[in-house]
């Protein structure tokens, strides 16, 4: 399913960030994608199921969450963090600002696949531990 992906701050993301970014809480707050309930039915995923998010630059597996800000069909939201930024596109259109919002992304169900922790994700994507 094709969606427009936007990324940004949430209060839970901010709270976990200030507690220190290593640990389960940070992953619970940020390794998620908030979806319109209708989009979830079309995609065949339920709250808590794993979803693969793919863009031109990469892919990441995160947990589906029913949006409390619906309806916004065709728009998906991910809290800012290493999971979202693994799929944010290149370039800044000569403004210095990367395209953190409005990314064309493809979603597919990935039930049962493991969601990586921040440490694992960084080690896997950037090859450093």
């Amino acid at each position, binding site marked *: 399913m094709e969606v*427009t992906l*936007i990324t*940004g*701050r*949430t*209060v839970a993301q*901010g*709270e*976990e*960030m*200030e*507690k*220190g*970014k*290593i640990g389960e809480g940070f992953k619970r707050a940020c390794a998620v994608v908030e979806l319109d309930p209708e989009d979830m039915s079309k995609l065949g995923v339920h709250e808590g199921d794993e979803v693969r998010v793919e863009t031109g*630059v*990469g892919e990441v597996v995160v947990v589906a969450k029913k*949006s*409390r*800000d*619906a*309806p*916004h069909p065709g*728009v998906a*939201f991910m809290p*800012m*963090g*290493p999971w979202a*930024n*693994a*799929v*944010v*596109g*290149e*370039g*800044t*259109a*000569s*403004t*210095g*600002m*990367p*395209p*953190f*919002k*409005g990314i064309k992304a493809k979603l597919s169900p990935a039930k049962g696949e493991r969601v990586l922790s*921040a*440490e694992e*994700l*960084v*080690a896997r*994507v*950037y*090859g*450093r*531990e």
Partner: protein
Amino acid sequence: MRYTDVICSFCGTLCDDIEVVVEDNRIVDVKHACRIGTAKFLSSNELEHRLLKPMVRKNGKLVETSLDEALDRAAGILKSAIKPLLYGWSSTSCEAQSAGIELAEELGGVIDATVTVCHGPSVLAVHDAGYPGCTLGEVKNRADLVIYWGSNPMHGHPRHLSRYSIFPRGYFRERGQSDRELVVVDVRKTDTAKIANRFIKVNYGEDYELISALRKVVNGGELREESVAGVPRKEIIELAEKMMNCQFGVLFFGMGLTQSYGRHRNIDNAICLVRDLNVHTKFVMQPMRGHYNVVGFSEVLGWQAGFPYAVDFGRGFAWYNPGETTANDVLQRGECDAALVIASDPVSHFPRKSVEHLAKIPLVAIDIHPTPTTQIADVVIPSAIAGIEVEGTAYRMDSVPLRLRKIKEPPEGVLSDEEIMRRLLARVRGAESGVQELEVRAR
């Protein structure tokens, strides 16, 4: 010991009414702060979540070391680089920023702050169209129409509405919320939108069109389209009339405008809308600045180098060209050959392409917590928390400077960001012995 009127060093709202109780150098109670602010105060206790010892990478692993060795290696990395990038700065004091800018100039490096990924486009628009702003005190005392556009303060700035914009009683707004109207423009019905008097749902990436339609109505034109950017004509005309007929209107805007399609052009158009509205009434605007001292960085860099962010000292003088000298462009072109990151976590918050280069070059990270950035760094230096463990100056989002207070001691041996910058500067200048040229690790 109970401290009152403590300033919270999390977001640009810089709440200055926090009460904190400290016992045996531990924070045991925090009053008035939001969820994020409370987490920040309490996190200073959780030593297992803190960085406490300097570390350097040896044989591919980060190992604990002495502060002197960490500083020597950091200075070595920076000195042997041709074009180091010095990034972060928004979550520390102006004093640390000032020393850091001196360091960047000494090194001939590029210095940039998180401005670059929040309101950098707003700065570009202000260069073009000016800045009809005000202080938050004026909003509290005067505003009867408050608009949040592409901004969700219930999550990003949880006390902004209760301290400055909607709920407080003001000099001319004695009944507080009853004397004000809240309008939210966003692509989702956010938690801020849910409590608004009116929510305008705009199509993603069409903010510019909606602002243009509002300007057309404000300037007396006839709107022929049935709807613009997904908003029906009737709603646009009503909003424009509401804006023209208020006594004191304020437009708070956020990443929904600066990070979406159009970027600085969205802000440029919004500034023009506010200018047009001032023909009819008093209207101002204010960017919702994120980190607590992101404004301070632009102020300090402004008076030391003449520009608000993204300055390249490589030519021997300050060169400012956003799109070229901005951190993500420098990284994505693979131009910098070393980096120092302070009080920020670009490995979490920069796009993949930028981080891929950051992971290839020698990296010095200075922070209070372990983060994905300290995870990939070659030198890690722990620092004390400004506003909790050290004093300093910070600028609120409306450019009002406030003095951060010290309410407890930092962990043993942990220095302030300013002191770390001063010691690095001394080593880079060769004033202290023991500077080692580091062999740059080939990766």
